[in-house]
């Protein structure tokens, strides 16, 4: 539909059993932008994020209706390989979750199972490039064999981003990636997001309004499972169209 739309979602409904968590949400994620999802707890922003790489499939009783397309391809089609989909649409979670393996193995795991490297040297190259892009290389290059879990929280989160990058995704979904990090580590992740912008379409869920304002070009405000407002971040934070958006971002409810 629109130019550069990487992901298009049309009329998406999500149910957890009988409870409807997402109501008729439509939005487009652009290839060259960072899109932020904001809204109070339980508003459905994480649920909606998870529909974009079918993470809701793993939740018992969850049901998704509507149309979600990646480059025009229906990701809920029977023929869609979900493992492949999640390599194309990578994810970074709230708490850093490195594997209890070496730093090298954390990053090498994905390319290896997806058969992205033909040789050891090529795999090492992918690991280095991913760690470089995640801004972690200089800190870990001399201790790649140490455990990933021995790193600091901020480093672990960048390791998880390197892991997501290693399989050469097209989209990276981030679910509150900084909520467990201190301000410096947070700033480094935000800087990383702006470095990665353009190379990957990025969608970030955040509770931190200032963070959404800092890192994104588009912002979507969710409330009670509905998409209340979606538009340019700068307009959203200076002059939102909807009363509910204004009340939320100015701290009047939520």
């Amino acid at each position, binding site marked *: 539909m629109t130019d550069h739309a990487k992901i298009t979602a049309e009329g998406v409904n999500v149910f957890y059993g009988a409870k409807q968590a997402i109501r008729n949400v439509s939005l487009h994620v652009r290839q060259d932008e960072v899109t932020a999802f904001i809204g109070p707890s339980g508003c459905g922003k994480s649920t909606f994020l998870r529909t974009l790489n079918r993470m809701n499939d793993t939740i018992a009783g969850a049901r998704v209706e509507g149309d979600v397309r990646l480059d025009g391809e229906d990701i809920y089609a029977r023929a869609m390989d979900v493992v492949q989909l999640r390599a194309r649409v990578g994810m970074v979670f709230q708490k850093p979750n490195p594997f209890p393996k070496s730093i090298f193995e954390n990053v090498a795991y994905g390319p290896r199972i997806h058969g992205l490297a033909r040789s050891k040297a090529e795999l090492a190259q992918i690991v280095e490039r991913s760690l470089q892009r995640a801004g972690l290389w200089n800190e870990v290059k001399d201790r790649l064999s140490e455990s990933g879990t021995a790193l600091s929280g901020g480093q672990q989160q960048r390791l998880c981003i390197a892991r997501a990058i290693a399989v050469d995704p097209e989209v990276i979904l981030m679910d509150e990636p900084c909520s467990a990090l201190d301000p410096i580590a947070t700033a480094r992740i935000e800087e990383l997001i702006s470095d990665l912008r353009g190379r990957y379409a990025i969608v970030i869920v955040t509770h931190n309004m200032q963070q959404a304002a800092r890192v994104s070009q588009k912002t979507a405000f969710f409330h009670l499972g509905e998409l209340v407002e979606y538009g340019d971040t700068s307009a959203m934070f*200076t*002059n939102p169209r909807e009363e509910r958006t*204004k*009340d939320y971002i*100015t701290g*009047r*409810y939520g």
Partner: protein
Amino acid sequence: MASQQEHTVKAFDQDIGQLRGLISQMGGLAEAAIGHAMTALQRGDLELADRIRQDDRRIDAIEADVERTAVRIIALRAPLANDLREVVAALKIAAVVERIGDYAKNIAKRVPLIEGEHRIEPLSTVPAMAKIAAEMVHDALDAFAARDAAKAVEIVRRDRTLDDFYDSIFRTLVTYMVENPKTISQCAHLLFVAKNLERIGDHATNVAEMVHFAATGNQMTDREWGNQ
């Protein structure tokens, strides 16, 4: 329009309330200064003229207070959307009101300079002009307190009346000066007084524009300006 709902963090409402209070206090003093300056001018009241200069220091002090409060709100509350626009508007309005106070003070300074001279007739039309200017200031600050964009538009349009007034006084004073060179000194001072009032009107117009932006998030259009 602006939401009447309170912030979850009550201290935020208190901060904003404090900022509004300071602006309205400042505006009240500036408006009074214009009125007093006219009275002093008409009566040749040197004592009143001196008091206006004293009062101007209070306006300056409140402006500094507004700055401190606004900076603190930005630092501690990280205001967004209408809150952000209001804090920014308050900061700018304070600077403008301070200028308005300076113009009133400048008028007061001229009182002793024309004291003792025979009063020429145009002196009686200047207070009428001052009344319009003071009303514009008053209404612009009322519009800020009420976040009333429609009222802001109405104030902007009034500025034209003030400009017409100035042109008329200018022509009258020039005629006086040509006909009777003895009045030149007094006329020159009155010319500055009229010019100051005209500038006060411009500043009130600026305030109204900021009120419009704070209330709606948009600049006034040409149509609202009455340029079409």
